């Protein structure tokens, strides 16, 4: 009966695809002709901390030569606008403002060599689409988000909770919203595996409560009477039809969530004030707190984003340094706290926390050297004149930083390397989006070559099934 009851480590053959959206070629079915043996999962939950807008590695996790602000300094001399700091791990240095994460990086791994595609012209949402689905748009089919892949293949961790929860991104009323919607989706897997969107962490509880203004008693009564009407509904033999049957089942599932004890995990007001305050650096910080609560309740995949809004937050086209000082304040404490709390609760071992972004930034280079990407800095200058010139205002795809904590990954581990001088390209162990996804999938017990039959052709979890997990990142084998 249970749709999610996939045998995870066995050969998967001929799974039926109930509850899936039918698309042009019929509902996607897991392909069986070429059996894929899933790896043993080292994590049951994945939390993706998304640094939306392109977080500059040289001003965060990959410090380079520091150049303080001085009027008249030629901008080409600038690599990092923050001084380097030590972390608890000898060979890992961060930039100033990330002291708290620096204290917990002995629980995690840092990849400095994440190389994303240069798409010839920068459009944030397009690179974000690529990162989140593993495929560069446009595509001939609606590609599922990585969270949907995990939801589809692993199913919910706790059947009451939606398997893919998306925290912090508004999809209405901000720039590039249509482009964001294009990848914030279950795609060909259908909405059963699509995101459960919680743009405001403090309002998350409303998403699992009776509608505004309805008392719990009234809600219960409404459900009871509805059930009576349903029972009496003269549908006859049509009740056995799959449309009918799945509708009743989904309505039951929804009601179950709205009445389950897990509901409380959405409610930040249940958190002690001192803990709430520790996380409360803003929406992102509270998103981390919500992610922790949901992980405790048994969520499968959670994304927490700093939120993508064109030209805001990490998307610095001017005044980068000042903005980064603020952004680091916003993320540093809650991320470190999240790691510590998960560890203290014994959850970190089976929870993979990934921090990533669509690309890095640089003072001078758009894309990579030789790219056709046009200059998008809003504060171009030959020499520093005022603070707005000071920051990494161009989008750089040649290297970037990713953090991974828990879920079977190595601790206090540094992977990959970038050049000391511009261009700050990856010099060792490049990790593509494909391979990074394969690594995440591997931890989650999903083979990178897992394929579904979409319109009669195989559609793979990683592009063309070619992602290769970075084995060195795993603690064991």
């Amino acid at each position: 009966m249970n749709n999610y009851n996939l045998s995870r480590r066995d050969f998967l053959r001929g799974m039926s695809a109930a509850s899936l959206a039918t698309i042009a070629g019929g509902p996607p079915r897991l392909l069986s002709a070429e059996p894929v043996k899933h790896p043993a999962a080292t994590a049951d939950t994945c939390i993706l901390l998304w640094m939306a807008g392109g977080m500059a590695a040289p001003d965060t996790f990959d410090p380079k030569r520091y150049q303080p602000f001085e009027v008249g300094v030629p901008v080409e001399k600038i690599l990092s606008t923050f001084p380097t700091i030590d972390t608890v791990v000898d060979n890992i240095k961060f930039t100033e403002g990330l002291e708290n994460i620096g204290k917990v990086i002995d629980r995690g791994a840092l990849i400095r060599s994440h190389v994303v595609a240069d798409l010839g012209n920068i459009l944030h949402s397009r690179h974000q689409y690529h990162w989140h689905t593993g495929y560069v748009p446009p595509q001939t089919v609606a590609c599922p988000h990585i969270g949907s892949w995990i939801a589809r293949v692993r199913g919910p961790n706790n059947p009451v909770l939606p398997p893919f929860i998306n925290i912090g991104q508004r999809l209405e009323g901000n720039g590039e919203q249509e482009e964001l919607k294009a990848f914030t989706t279950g795609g060909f897997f259908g909405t059963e595996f699509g995101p459960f969107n919680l743009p405001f962490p403090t309002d998350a509880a409303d998403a699992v409560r009776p509608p505004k203004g309805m008392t719990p008693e009234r809600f219960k009564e409404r459900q009871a009477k509805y059930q009576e009407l349903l029972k009496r509904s003269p549908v006859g033999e049509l009740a056995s039809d799959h449309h009918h049957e799945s509708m009743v089942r989904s309505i039951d599932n929804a009601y179950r969530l709205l009445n389950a004890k897990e509901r409380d995990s959405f409610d930040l007001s249940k958190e002690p004030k001192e803990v709430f305050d520790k996380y409360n650096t803003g929406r992102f910080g509270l998103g981390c707190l919500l992610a922790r609560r949901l992980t405790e309740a048994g969520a499968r995949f959670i994304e927490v984003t700093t939120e993508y809004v064109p030209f805001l937050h990490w998307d610095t086209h001017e005044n980068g340094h000042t903005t980064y000082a603020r952004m680091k304040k916003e993320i540093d404490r809650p991320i470190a706290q999240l790691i510590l709390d998960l560890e203290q609760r014994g959850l970190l071992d089976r929870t993979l926390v990934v921090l990533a972004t669509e690309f890095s930034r640089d003072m001078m280079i758009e894309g990579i050297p030789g790219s056709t990407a046009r200059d998008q800095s809003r504060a171009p200058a030959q020499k520093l004149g005022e603070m707005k010139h000071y920051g990494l205002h161009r989008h750089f795809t040649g290297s970037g930083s990713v953090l991974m904590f828990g879920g079977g990954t190595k601790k206090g581990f540094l992977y990959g390397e970038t050049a000391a001088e511009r261009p700050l390209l990856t010099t060792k162990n490049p990790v593509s989006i494909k391979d990074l996804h394969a690594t995440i999938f591997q931890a989650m017990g999903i083979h990178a070559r897992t394929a579904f039959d979409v319109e009669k052709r195989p559609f793979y979890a990683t592009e063309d099934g070619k992602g290769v997990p970075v084995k060195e990142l795993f603690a064991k084998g």
Partner: protein
Amino acid sequence: MPVRLLVIFAATIAFPVVAADPPKGVDFAHDVVPILKTHCAKCHTNGTYKGSLSMDTRADVLKKAMVPGKAAMSAMIKRVTSTDADERMPPEGKRLTEKEVQVLMKWIDEGVTWEPGFSFKAKTYIASVKPRRPKLPHPNEPVHPIDQFVDAYFADRKITTPARLEDDAFVRRVYLDLIGVLPTQSELSAFLPDSAPGKRDNLIRRLLDDKRAYADHWLALWNDLLRNEYKGTGYIDGGRKQITAWLYKSLLDNKPYDVFVRELVSPTPDSEGFVKGIKWRGEVNASQVVELQFAQNIGQVFFGANLKCASCHDSFIDHWKLDDAYGLAAVIADKPLAIHRCDKPTGKTAATKFLFPELGTIDPNAAKAKRLERLAELTTSPENGRFARTIANRIWHRLMGHGLVHPVDLMGDKPWSDDLLDYLATYLVDNKYDLKKLMEHITTSAAYQSKAVAIAKEVPNDEYVFRGPEIKRLTAEQFVDAVWMLTGTAPAKPQAAAAIPPFGGATPKERQFVRATLVDADPLMRSLGRPNREQVVTVRPEQLSTLQALDLANGQILAATLTRGAENLLKASPKASADELVEHVFIRALGRKPAADELVAAHGLVGEKPTTDGVADLLWSVVMLPEFQLVR
């Protein structure tokens, strides 16, 4: 049981090769197939098996030619590298290059990975291009032609003819199918007691004649098919264009389908948005440039032909080739189009080619406008049976819940009745491509007007047996329209950029509202399955998902709408008793009166003295019933 277990165990042992290790570079589709095709396929695949060696499937090659993981021990490698004239393969002609041998060895060493489902054996069924006019089984009997074919089909398979649908269910179904909304109470009470024998036919004609209601409803299908949306990706930097005004007018005018498609393929500025595709900023994969989007969309929408594979390499799932996709793409290309195979240039330039070359050619040297004109002509030629069959099948699918060919985009597959599909296609052509005529023809058949059959589980196409119409789920727009109509909460103004005429004189007041198809998608509609329309969409989700159910259970949009609706109802009938309100809602939502026990339950929701909350809860409980959300 033990035997079965043993088999599974043995299979596990036999193929350790596809274990956790990811592929190390050799790709079956892109690296191996071309070599096998060039050097081996002629003698060892698709019916020709020299030396009784078949290479059609992975299982076949493992029988004789190779040992997974052991290239050096594999007969194939020995033979292709042998210098012995009796041993060598291929026996004559060009040998494999060293590089090709390396690829094959690596492939074998990596375990002989195979594209799931791929076989060199050609499918046995070949969909014909030419139109065909099947003979009516009983040309002299006064039986609806569709039913003559269906009855013959039933008789052949000893299937009991489904019973005729009762009037109340019929009227709900036909309203939703033809104009997308529920009948009003006045329309119900005019239709149900009517005893005239032609009343169903008359109703069908009247619905199809309601130009605005028809256009408002079918706009959803065509927006999906033609990838047209009022907001969406691509508009942000001018890489996309709407065709809303043109499309809406075409539907209002019931433009003949051949003219309609000619105007899309060889467009005016008003209709060019479809062929222009969506252009993203920056570089895209060679198979996704706008020219190939054009080829894919033309292929999918008008011919149910999937050129998505063939845009990258010769398709493995059907007979479309890279040259077919590029040949079509070249028609719209402004400059010579370099053919890319798997995103790498092949050094060749695309030559214009129509998908069905037997119908004619397109002069590559003609100007682009002329080429498009010629393509439009070939596409819509009466000799192009595939064109008429594809749309006839789509309409049949919409009305009957299941295609004659299903899924509807795989028109190369065998229909469950060739005769019926070919008949419908020629009927459409004979009637000057009048889609309303086709809809009228289908909906006046006994096949359409029979009871729905329950399908417990969808079955693969080749196992499908037609037993009667299937249940359909309300589309997002139909659901929202039904709620708006029931509660009087529709938006005041349309957002679609089209010239929308006033309602026809005979339109009942309750149906005079702005339909969901005419406004931007809100989160509720999106949740219920109105697509983003970045890709062509031809079928909506058939099942309600948990997240959708959650949106319906506690989402603010529906909750607020129902509360406003309750206020509207109470304002309109301030003196109504609870039972009167229940009856009012049941008739409008379900097209019937509540049974006694339903009345008791529903009465409990409303309360002795009706309140806004009580009525809102009644509305919710009714619109959540499968009886409401499904078309039976």
